[in-house]
């Protein structure tokens, strides 16, 4: 589904990613772990099409297409979804209005009829149960005045409605208490299927107790330096990222 080859990316002239390689197939869950500043969020941002990042080398194929050629909305319409680390507040735009516009743009792109207001409402009522979100948040402005936990749940709720093929969760666990974490993780797990894939970007192993990955990759200084199964996450939790660094230095 996703093939990243030798990806180099810069922000304002500073190279952050120094050659990332990653393969994600349908049905898989990958975790990308790494210390602060290792380039995790940059990688997520590059995949979603953030303009601030400049790709200087390498390529990204997504379902056989050149992902980097697409603008952000086309990526979303092709089934890519980024759950933001810091969901953006948009005063004056209601959550439902925004989500209906998004869903219908995606449906139209994929040759489906747009949903009318009634159809959309019944879909939303169904999906909102998944994240245990109070219904009144739907009619409020997007993320405005939401608590940290509500914002993250709103991300997963949007994901549930938009049904992406590839979901990238960028530090979705940050700032969540354990109950909220569980709700968010439950939501993600319920959305898992053999046809879609999830990339979980996180600093801490904690989230991976709830969203169990098939593969764990360690990103350090803009490169994936180690990959393994779910046990790698536990090892990292136990020994810390310095252990990976030391191992690297020994290897060199």
């Amino acid at each position: 589904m996703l093939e990243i080859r030798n990806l180099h990316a810069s922000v304002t002239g500073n190279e952050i990613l120094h050659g990332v390689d990653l393969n994600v197939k349908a049905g898989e869950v990958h975790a990308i772990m790494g210390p602060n500043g290792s380039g995790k969020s940059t990688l997520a941002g590059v995949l979603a099409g953030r303009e601030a990042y400049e790709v200087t080398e390498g390529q990204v194929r997504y379902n056989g297409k050149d992902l980097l050629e697409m603008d952000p909305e086309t990526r979303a319409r092709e089934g890519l979804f980024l759950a933001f680390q810091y969901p953006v507040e948009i005063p004056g735009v209601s959550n439902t209005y925004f989500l209906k516009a998004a869903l219908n743009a995606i449906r139209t792109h994929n040759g489906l009829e747009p949903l009318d207001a009634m159809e959309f409402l019944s879909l939303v009522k169904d999906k909102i149960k998944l994240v245990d979100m109070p219904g009144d948040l739907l009619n409020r402005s997007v993320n405005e005045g939401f608590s940290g936990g509500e914002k993250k749940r709103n991300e997963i709720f949007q994901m549930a409605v938009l049904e992406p093929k590839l979901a990238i969760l960028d530090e979705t666990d940050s700032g969540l208490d354990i109950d909220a974490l569980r709700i968010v993780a439950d939501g993600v797990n319920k959305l898992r299927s053999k046809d879609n894939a999830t990339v979980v970007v996180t600093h801490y192993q904690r989230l991976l107790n709830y969203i169990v990955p098939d593969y764990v990759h360690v990103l350090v200084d803009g490169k994936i330096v180690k990959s393994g199964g779910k046990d790698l996450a536990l090892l990292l939790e136990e020994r810390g990222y310095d252990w990976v660094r030391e191992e690297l230095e020994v290897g060199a």
Partner: protein
Amino acid sequence: MSDNELHVLASYKSSFDRLEQSLNGEAASQLHTLRRRALTALEEKGFPTTKEEEWRFTNVAPIAAKSFVPVLHYSHEGVTRADAAKSLLSDPEAVQMVFINGHFSSELSSASIADGKVRVTNLATAFRTEFESVSRHLGKYVRHDENAFTAMNTAFVLDGAYVFVADNAQIEAPIHFLFIAAGNKSVMAAPRNLIIAGKNSKVSIIETYVGLTATPYLSNTVTEFVVGENARVEHDRLQDEHRDAFHISTVHFQQSTNSNVVSNAINLGGSIARNGITSVLAGEGIETTLNGLSLGTGTQHIDNHTTIDHAKPHCASHEIYKAVLDGKSRGVFNGKIFVRKDAQKTDAKQTNKTLLLSDEATIDTKPQLEIFADDVKCTHGATVGYLDDEQMFYLRSRGVGFEQARDILTFAFAIDVINRVHVDALRNRLEAMIHERLQEGRQLEK
């Protein structure tokens, strides 16, 4: 004054002479004395220039260069009921009166109302039937010599809207005055409106200005509100003139103790539009709210000058003016707040926010607070910005296209002001209009 300006002023003088001849016996009346004084003021002052502080950002030379023809008599100019209906409210309860080039059109209006609670009619009729009330208030708040435009409006006072709400009368149905500019002459439409709200009364007044002609014209309007003790007045003003037209307006609220005024001023049209809105808080416990929204595209110039005059203690004023400017349009906001020496415990808040949709659009914003009392709370803030990149990316990352994302964010910025309009039929109409105009604007700027 330039030769051309002298020539223009002479043409207004000769229109005035024609008016005078048609008056016969009335030429000696008190009202006509006011007209004459206004003409003299016009001749003496001439048109304002950008050298004057009040007009620094708005150059009215294109208006001063042209002799617009004051309209002395009603003519329907071919405007049909269907034409008018497009700009009327779809509220069967609303009282709606139509004016063409400043003169009342009985053929296009619903019947005027005169009962114990409220009288809604045109000023020309009120001169005869409500002479005492008209002469007590007309021209007492907006000075005829304030500037060339108030002088011209006053010199040619002939018709306009007149409302008298009796003490304790609560009028739920909105009263809507639709001013249509029409015909193939470059006219000056100068409606003069007088609204008197009695003690403990409640009323909603709407003014709409539209143009059905591409011939450049000048709408030069004055509206005076006399707001009685504990009265509640909402005033919604929609300026949607033709894009080649000039629109100059002066609105004044004279507020008594414990009264409450909400003014919503929406500006969409005109090539040069300048609005002066003044609230005088001449009693205690008064609340005044001035809201504004302007949308500019192309080379439109939209200027809002507001003045809130806190003369007495324990009053509050709230003000939010927003503008969305695209293309090479230019906005001006000048917000004066006076807090006089007596006006202790004043609570005044002013906000001006501008969203620029293009690099070539500009805004001049100037808060002007003059505070002479020491125990007051006054705040003001102005922000000018482009669409937020993070918000744009968030919307797009969910599949919403660039243009739709831009429209959604712009609409959200603007609609906040429209939501403050309490008249349902008008609010719904404005919402649809703003939506449509933003899309048209985008097409226009492509």
